[in-house]
């Protein structure tokens, strides 16, 4: 999943980036409202965390402008202003949830995951296909109830494919959603990750959970 963090406090921003990256997110950073607007419009994001107190414009204005431009990605407001009037104004402006500083990082993660899940129409935090189960909260993957060890990027690829179950995901889209903007990309790496995932998920080649659609991309088929 690829997220955007719009926060002007550099130390907090770096902490958030490190925390989210550690949990498998591709993270884009913006320190001003203008940068945040640009990133939200240009990058294929799955969610955004926006601080209200930005130096050039209010975070609320950024959210309102994004909603006016029909950008529908889920947005979580990060605010130091704990008053209810400001929370309601933020949610009215188009945010989907709020978190008051200082926050627990685990709570931030849980809320962000819930937002992403809801935006994909998933009511449950566990994504599944055949005998594969992926828990978005604990980030554990099991196959036939046995835990499976995946690298961070393998997890990202599987999570995204399960999240978009039934959809054909091209290599470029997959790349954009698992790497942030600063990463040096190589589309051949995706093929390597898919190959490794297939071996780990279906070592005997029986269930074939990931389909390849030549020239178009990959797909985990929808349940029949």
């Amino acid at each position, binding site marked *: 999943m690829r997220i955007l963090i719009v926060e002007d406090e550099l130390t907090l921003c770096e902490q958030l980036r490190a925390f989210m990256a550690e949990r498998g997110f591709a993270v884009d950073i913006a320190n001003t409202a203008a940068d945040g607007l640009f990133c939200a419009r240009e990058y294929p994001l799955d969610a955004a965390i926006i601080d209200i107190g930005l130096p050039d414009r209010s975070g609320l204005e950024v959210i309102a402008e994004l909603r006016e431009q029909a950008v529908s990605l889920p947005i979580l407001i990060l605010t130091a202003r704990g008053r*209810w*009037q400001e929370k309601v104004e933020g949610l009215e402006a188009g945010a989907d949830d709020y978190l008051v500083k*200082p926050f627990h990082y685990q709570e931030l993660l849980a809320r962000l995951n819930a937002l992403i899940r809801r935006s994909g129409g998933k009511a449950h935090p566990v994504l599944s296909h055949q005998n594969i189960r992926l828990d978005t909260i604990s980030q554990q993957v099991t196959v036939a109830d046995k835990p499976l060890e995946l690298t961070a990027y393998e997890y990202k690829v599987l999570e995204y494919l399960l999240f978009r179950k039934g959809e054909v995901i091209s290599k470029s889209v997959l790349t954009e959603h698992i790497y942030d903007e600063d990463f040096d990309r190589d589309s051949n790496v995706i093929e390597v990750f898919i190959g490794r995932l297939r071996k780990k998920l279906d070592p005997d080649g029986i269930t074939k959970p990931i389909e390849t659609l030549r020239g178009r991309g990959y797909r985990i088929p929808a349940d029949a």
Partner: protein
Amino acid sequence: MRLKSISGRLLLAGALVMIVVFALAGWVLERSYRSSAEQALQETLKVQIYALLAIAEVNRKGHLTLPHTLREPRFGILGSGLYAWVSQRDGPVLWHSPSALGVAPSAPPEFKPGVFQFVRNQDHRYTLHYGVIWETQRQHTYEFIFSVVEDSQFVNHQVNRFRATLYSGLSSIGLVILFMQFLVLRWSLSPLRTIGQDLAAIERGDKTRLEPNYARELNGLAGNLNALIISERAHQERYRNTLADLAHSLKTPLAILRGELDKPTPQQVTMHEQITRMNDIVEYQLQRAAAQGRQKLLGTVDICTMLRKITASMAKVYADKAPYFELNLPEQWPAHIEQGDFYEIAGNLIDNACKWCQTRVSITVQKANADNCHCLLIIEDDGPGIATSELSAILGRGVRADQNTAGHGIGMAVVNELITLLEGRLHGSTSPHLGGMRWEVYLP
């Protein structure tokens, strides 16, 4: 009795001044009239004396004689009130009119020939004396005093009639003047009345400022009041922004500190706790500082609109739980409360209801039947509720942010503080309707 209305005071003062002036004027007029009446009487009596002189004769023996029948018929009627005497200087009465029979003559004054002397006697009679030196053809001279008397009843009757006419006339004029004064005051004070109505409209929230054109004398006052209202609003806004900035500058470092302590070791757990405690205290004190209390001059806000906004926000925040909101709200309900304060009260209570409910949250606004409180906000849920023993701890005065019941954070302490500041009341019980918690908020 204290009159609180300016027009009432002016009217009363005007009426009192008018009564005093009219009473003095009446007294002066009455005295003048009496004086004129007495002057007229003196002239009449003078004519009577001339008439008596014209018919009086002194015979050869030196006796004064007058005809038995006189021209003035009242002289012939016994007790008619008009009497005449002729007496010798320092001597006896020589003649009296038939009307004076049995009436004691007035004592003649010092003899002054050719001089009329007008006297008001103590026996309520007016007397005109005239001293005459009468010389006969035989060169004899006699000294007589002609006295004509009129009862004072005659003058008194005239004065009384004048007085009755005078005072009824003055009373009528007074009433007309009072009514005109009332109309003049009403017209003159109408700018003050308009300013009062406009201030009431500002309190209701129908207007945001006073008009600039009441009356030249009041324009300064209206301008200063407008400046006060604007400055109060600006002050509140500035105050709120300062608090928000303060919150931002305090909480972002706290967020960084908490981020650094992501992997809990025993020491870091303590630091976590202390950071949480510091944050709660900062939050609680900031919320208290931002509370505005009752702000009549800043108008009213519609609490129903705010409640709808809060529930719409809660529906987003609790999208996974998807509580069913049962709203029993009138179309609008204006209240004298600062918007931020109401958001804080209702936001915290509805947030708690959503947090603890199973599926349902009910919000009702209705008229309150309590002293000074006209609005009752009821928030109920179908959750587990709160034990009575915990309730008193949550609502107890002086409960500090770091001593609040777990699960309720600083929210309830802030709510209780705000409601107290607004001179309202908060009451918690079990909802008979949904079975969970029921909070009743009485607002002025």
